[in-house]
């Protein structure tokens, strides 16, 4: 949990409504630096909406987003990125006409660096992720797995305080998942940031997260260590139906 003085990214009583549909209803979540926090829930639970709110792509209908003790609820995605909130998307969304190196440099320049410093940061991130051999390849020519990893690298090139990853393992095979898990586990220490990880692959969630937050139907259902969440009957019910929840209880 966060300590006084720690930098945190907080969602406080977040409500998001699209017309009559309530995507999020009173969600509270705190992302702390130094740990990987999982965000799970069935399809339509509101996970991506919450990440959109935290990264400035979606303004909350009610509630507040607090970053470094400042209300940033109405800040757009550019401001949030420059303030240290990096994110990846469900689709990799690389800049197809730019090289991998230029993809990363774009993020570094977005934080205010000049070309030379941006190139240096790009090289350093690629080297850490052991992807330097891809530096001069075009974004549109990469394999699926490489695309996903480069999208994470690009978010890391922002040098973020908080990194929000939206289903980074989707479509990856077992070997790629293992590599990805090692990578995500190492990110908080290497970049001194907090990671919020949306993922359907429970092996990844259990393997890398220190804490897990569960959403269901736009509401917070549970929060705790991966084991606590795994054994929570409400969570089992949300994922597997009423019978599973009753058996566990």
């Amino acid at each position, binding site marked *: 949990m966060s300590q006084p003085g720690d930098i945190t990214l907080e969602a406080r009583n977040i409500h998001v409504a699209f017309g009559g549909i309530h995507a999020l209803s009173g969600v509270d979540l705190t992302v702390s630096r130094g740990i990987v926090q999982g965000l799970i829930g069935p399809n339509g639970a509101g996970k991506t909406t919450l990440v959109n709110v935290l*990264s400035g*792509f979606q303004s909350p209908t009610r509630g507040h987003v607090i970053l470094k003790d400042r209300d940033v609820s109405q800040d*757009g*995605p*550019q*401001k949030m*990125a*420059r303030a240290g909130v*990096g*994110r990846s*998307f469900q689709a990799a*969304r*690389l*800049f*197809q*006409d*730019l090289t991998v190196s*230029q*993809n990363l*440099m*774009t*993020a570094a*320049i*977005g*934080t205010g660096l*000049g*070309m030379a410093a*941006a190139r240096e940061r790009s090289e350093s991130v690629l080297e850490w992720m052991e992807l330097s051999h891809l*530096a*001069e390849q075009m*974004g549109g020519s990469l394999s699926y797995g490489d695309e996903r990893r480069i999208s994470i690298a*690009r*978010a890391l090139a*922002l040098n973020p305080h908080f990194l929000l990853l939206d289903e980074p393992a989707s479509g990856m095979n077992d070997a790629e998942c293992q590599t990805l898990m090692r990578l995500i586990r190492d990110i908080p220490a290497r970049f001194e940031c907090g990671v919020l990880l949306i993922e359907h692959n429970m092996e990844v969630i259990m393997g890398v997260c220190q804490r897990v937050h569960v959403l269901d139907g736009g509401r917070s259902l549970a929060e705790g260590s991966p084991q606590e969440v795994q054994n929570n009957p409400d969570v089992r019910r949300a994922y597997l139906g009423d019978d599973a929840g009753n058996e566990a209880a």
Partner: protein
Amino acid sequence: MKTAELPRWQAFVQRHFAVLFIAACLVVFVAVVELFASVLVQRVVTEALIRIVIVVGIYVFTGNSGIISFGSVTFMAVAAYATGWQTCCAMLKPITMSGLPSILRDHTYPVYVSAATSVGLAALLAFITGLILMRLSGLAASISTLAILFILNVTYSNWETVTMGTASMVGLPTYITPWLALAAALLAVLCAWIFQNSARGLLLRASRADEVAAAACGVSLYWSRLIAFTLSGAIMGLAGVLSAHFLGTVSINSYFLNLTFLALAMLVVGGMKSLSGAVVGVIVVSTIIDVFRRIEVGIPVGDVTFSLPPGTQELVLAGVMIIILMFRKDGLMGGQEFRLPVRFLRQHRRSLEAKDT
């Protein structure tokens, strides 16, 4: 291949090969034309070089941002008239353009001073209009640039005491030689290359590819677009000065939809995602236009004159555009810049590795 492995000058050549290749080709071509071609061909080549300035001017904004600008020709017209007011017909100005301020009506200025001020005026106008237009995105931004073109056309067409309305302003000094047009084309190409490889250019190209992902990278599009639009306005201004002093006349109807769509066609044919594409598009389309223009006039073959009906060049150009849009939507260059041949790079890498071992 890492450029860091190469000696400095080779890394420089590799990184800037596209612009060096374009410059070398144009210089050699103009030299050959100057030495061996007729005056008529020299004029055709000069016209093509001016078109390179026009298309590169449009490319700087449209190519990098992905927003098609229908209004870039506006800045060309502004500069053409500005240089006309400063350099033409000292005796006639008080009669034909009596509404001009005294500083223009009663004085004539050196051509290079007028060129510089006219380009500056075009850039300033682009900056001021850009302050408003660059807040828009996508189709809205494109249509708003078209609105600027219409506003200027209607204003200049009806401002008879200053622009002579739809009549032509004549008597401008004609000092544009192929070498001068070449220098201007090279300057335009160089400016475009420097911009597209700058931090602002990179951000703009990223936003062209994916605006949402660019926003997630902290990219604020407004200033990047405004700088590109202003630079584009300056280059279009240069093109306006060149065309005015190449033809010796300025007419508002020369800077309207025909020229806009011809320039955009060149950009589409070559490929609007690369500077090399912009230049290739001008060369290919200019060649098609010139060849069919000559055939329309008639080519004597023995005792018979072979000719095609008037308008054939437009039909052929339209056909070429349709074919390219169908089979190569990123244009002839496919969105790529000219690059050193892969075989050369492989050979060079092998020789470097051999040296290391």
